[in-house]
């Protein structure tokens, strides 16, 4: 039995690989899933529990704790302002190195969006910029524009990345699990810490592979900073992206198809069209359009556009279009905004599933399938639901809108949908969109062929009748069979570089707060001043608590001893005086007697 360790950012990534993991487990592999971040926003923890319960060969566990997660890095300045009662933690070596690692990786991600192919992707660049401490964009914003400068900076960053040591906790975790193969996903998150697993695997001689989870992963996020031994992608387009944008040698890439969409080929509607329409609140006698919501990055404020779209539909003046029903399907991870949408204001329009529905609830996937299956066409800004609609052969539409430029022209993956080989008909205005709907909803053999070709190329490159899940499982098994790699311990120059590198790490840790330069200059004197004042307060406390009572006691003792001694002396004096008087009196009496006798 072989051991496969599958490292995921959070349990939400299970949905991309659920079938493949079960298949690997069924064929006798022990699959250990480790999650860097626990997440239950969309019931991901339930998915993990369900998967673990499905086979004794599947185990789910948290990945080792990091001293500083990327999230901590981003909120460090808030965290630094400790709340009363918090324990101030001394900054360790590990903190400094992790800070340097996150900084270096974020800068690399930032630089990639200066490349010519990302010239329209200002929002993607802005997304990284927001995560970086502000000093870096200020320094790099202008310097990174010439390609030669970028190359030099990148080479320097790669050098720094090399000297960052592996994390002891991760080394220990990998040694304990001792996997035959380490799978990682997504690895390309901005400033990702999963890179450390790839580095540890290289050091320990464990074979590693990146599983590219989704169609936008290689173009809209960060870079693969340290190359794993293998990269598993969906299709040739992604293979080219991996080579051109991430520098992955073609011989390390395996194309498997998209296992995520396999169930769309096998599924059948869960109920009749009439039942479905009645359930969701649409007129079953009329065809309807499905509006598929996009993710929060693509469409943060989608409701006003949808309202305009619905109005345009109703007032289009084209009877066939005006009478269409409209079913709105919010993106599961961007559904909250739809609470403000009033579907009752639009005739024959409905929102389904209701906002806030748990994606793990029974029937959720079936509802989605039925929504697409029974629709006359699918409309969306830029979302993977448009790929799913292409699998079912539905006509697919989108409208270019100024508020979504960043999520349409500003992303490379949008071109897969609307480019020459794409399946989505794009309109530059709602008026044009209405005309496209008028003609586009009719049966069209040419469109069906285009859809099939797109699906074959993009989703199932090994053939429309070849499910991607078994191909993925076979690819993983084949990679595992290659056996362990040669351990690659750090060379001497890397170990030597760590001595000056430690200062760099300290600087990165300090700069990660994103404060202006003068703050670092005044911090030390300010802390010194505060500590001096604090010392004064402490001395004052000590004086109040111990000094003053002691002095009081001493003073009292002195007074007492003075009093006692003076009393004693007085007493002695008094007695001496009395004795003296008596002696004097006796002497006087004796003298008188002597005089009298004479």
């Amino acid at each position, binding site marked *: 039995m072989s051991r496969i360790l599958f490292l995921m950012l959070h349990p939400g990534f299970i949905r991309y690989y659920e079938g493949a993991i079960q298949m690997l487990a069924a064929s006798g592999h022990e699959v250990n899933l480790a999650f860097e971040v626990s997440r239950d926003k969309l019931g991901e923890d339930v998915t993990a529990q369900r998967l673990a319960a499905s086979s004794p060969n599947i185990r789910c566990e948290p990945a080792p704790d990091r001293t500083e997660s990327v999230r901590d890095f981003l909120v460090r300045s808030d965290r*630094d*302002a400790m709340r009363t009662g918090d324990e101030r933690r001394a900054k360790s070596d590990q903190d400094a190195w992790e800070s340097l690692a996150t900084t270096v990786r974020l800068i690399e991600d930032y630089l990639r969006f200066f490349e010519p192919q990302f010239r329209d992707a200002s929002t993607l660049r802005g997304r990284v910029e927001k995560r970086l401490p502000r000093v870096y964009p200020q320094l790099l914003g202008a310097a990174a524009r010439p390609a030669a400068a970028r190359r030099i900076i990148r080479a320097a960053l790669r050098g720094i990345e090399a000297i960052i040591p592996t994390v002891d906790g991760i080394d220990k975790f990998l040694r304990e699990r001792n996997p035959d193969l380490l799978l990682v996903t997504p690895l390309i998150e901005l400033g990702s810490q999963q890179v450390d697993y790839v580095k540890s695997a290289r050091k320990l001689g464990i074979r590693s592979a990146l599983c590219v989870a989704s169609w936008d992963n290689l173009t809209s996020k960060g870079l693969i900073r340290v190359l794993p031994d293998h990269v598993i992608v969906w299709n040739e387009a992604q293979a080219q992206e991996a080579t051109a944008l991430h520098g992955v040698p073609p011989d390390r890439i395996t194309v498997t198809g998209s296992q995520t969409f396999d169930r769309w080929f096998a599924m059948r509607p869960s109920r009749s069209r009439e039942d479905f329409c009645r359930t969701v609140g649409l007129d079953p006698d009329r065809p309807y359009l499905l509006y598929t919501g996009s993710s929060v990055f693509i469409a943060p404020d989608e409701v006003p556009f949808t309202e305009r779209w619905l109005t345009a539909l*109703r007032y289009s003046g084209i009877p066939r279009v005006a009478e269409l029903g409209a079913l709105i399907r919010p993106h599961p991870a961007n559904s*909250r*905004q739809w609470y403000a949408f009033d579907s009752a204001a639009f005739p024959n329009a409905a929102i389904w599933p209701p906002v*806030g529905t748990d994606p793990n609830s029974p029937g959720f996937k079936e509802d989605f399938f039925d929504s697409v299956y029974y629709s006359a066409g699918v409309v969306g800004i830029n979302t993977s639901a448009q790929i799913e609609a292409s699998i079912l052969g539905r006509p697919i539409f989108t409208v270019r809108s100024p508020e979504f430029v960043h999520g349409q022209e500003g992303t490379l993956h949008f071109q897969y949908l609307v480019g020459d080989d794409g399946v989505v008909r794009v309109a530059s205005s709602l008026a044009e969109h209405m005309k496209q709907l008028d003609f586009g909803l009719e049966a069209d053999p040419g469109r069906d062929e285009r859809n099939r070709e797109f699906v074959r190329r993009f989703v199932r490159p090994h053939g429309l009748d070849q499910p991607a899940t078994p191909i993925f499982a076979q690819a993983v098994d084949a990679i595992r069979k290659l056996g362990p790699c040669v351990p690659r311990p750090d060379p001497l120059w890397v170990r030597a570089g760590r001595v000056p590198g430690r200062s760099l790490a300290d600087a990165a840790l300090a700069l990660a707060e994103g404060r202006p330069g*003068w703050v670092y200059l005044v911090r030390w004197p300010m802390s010194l001043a505060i500590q001096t004042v604090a010392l004064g307060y402490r001395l004052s406390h000590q004086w109040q608590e111990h000094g003053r009572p002691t002095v009081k006691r001493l003073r009292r003792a002195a007074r007492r001893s003075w009093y006692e001694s003076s009393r004693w002396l007085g007493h002695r004096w008094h007695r001496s005086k009395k004795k003296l008087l008596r002696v004097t009196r006796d002497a006087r009496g004796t003298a008188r007697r002597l005089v009298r006798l004479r």
Partner: protein
Amino acid sequence: MVLLRPDVSQPARCGIDLVAAAAHARETGGAVYLLLDGQSMPVSVDGVPVITPHGMQRVWLSVVWRTASAARDVRARWRHLEASVVHEWRRELRRHIGDERLPFELRQRLRSMAEASTRRGRSETNAFPRRMLRAPSAVSLSSDFVEEARSQLTALGITDGRPLVTFESRTRPDIAVAVMEYLVDEGYAVARIGEPADSVHSCDGVVDLTTRASRPLSLEMFLVSASAFIMCESIELQQLAYLVNTPSLMINARDPFVAYPVRANGLVALSSAIDLESAQRITIGDMLTQPYFRDLHKQQVRGRRRGSHGYRDNTVEELTEAIQEMRAGITDGWTSESESQSRFRQRVVEAGAALAPISAHVSEWGPDDGFIGDGRLVRFQADGVS
């Protein structure tokens, strides 16, 4: 002397500049000198000379203007720097305030220093001069200008036969269409202005100016001045209405302070705010609380894309009711105000006074020395405020 260089490319914005300049000139007994490039400003304000300088006087005033604006820039930069230093200073203090190893008295002292710096950082906001804008200026447009604008409107199909309503709506085109149809049915001509609406619908009696490539200052200003009233969503258009003293109905307002009308002939209708956590509609009273403004501020000022609140636009029924109230106000005068409307005004003033010390946004847009405005919240909403 008040020197003014209005941005004529943005008619709505230059309206408030003119009103403020005229009000200030009236107070100080001076004149308004307009520095304009190319276009002439077709406005005269009774009691306040509005002078367009020429020749050497213009050169001299331009130099004065440039010097003053450079000084203003330097001041603004200085204020920005000062605010940044104060902010960072506060953050540095906060680093130590939570450190329990420090003596309690010292932490208390640091805390009071941090609070003092917070107060100092907030004392620099420029408040919206509500009191100055309170009295309507007797503004009139020059006859040449009126003539030119009228001919342009005639060419567009708007004639003097019907009272005009200038309508600006940014969202929910279906509601906009229904309201415009209602206005047309009520005997108004409607001119739609503002951002181009991505709607394929048009209705009779409505002239859509949103699709015109350019809308000269003269046209927009004349439209607002010639209107029986305006319906708007933007603060700029509301302020342009102050210039020509046209009654305004602000719709779909999200911020009760910003939108509250200064003039008595102004009405405001608030959007329905939905709490996106609980999916519940929040009350108008809740729209005057600190958590609401914190969220609004994050969305508007910090550019955060998602807030904790979503908004539903005013419905057709609400807007027709507001239009009826506006018509009643124009016909019968603006003297009759319901108990609930004056109570709401008082509530806004009280909320503003409470929030101003802790919210820069409220201190900028809230009550000006206890005065929020003579306008009112539409009656149907005011009646519903508990």
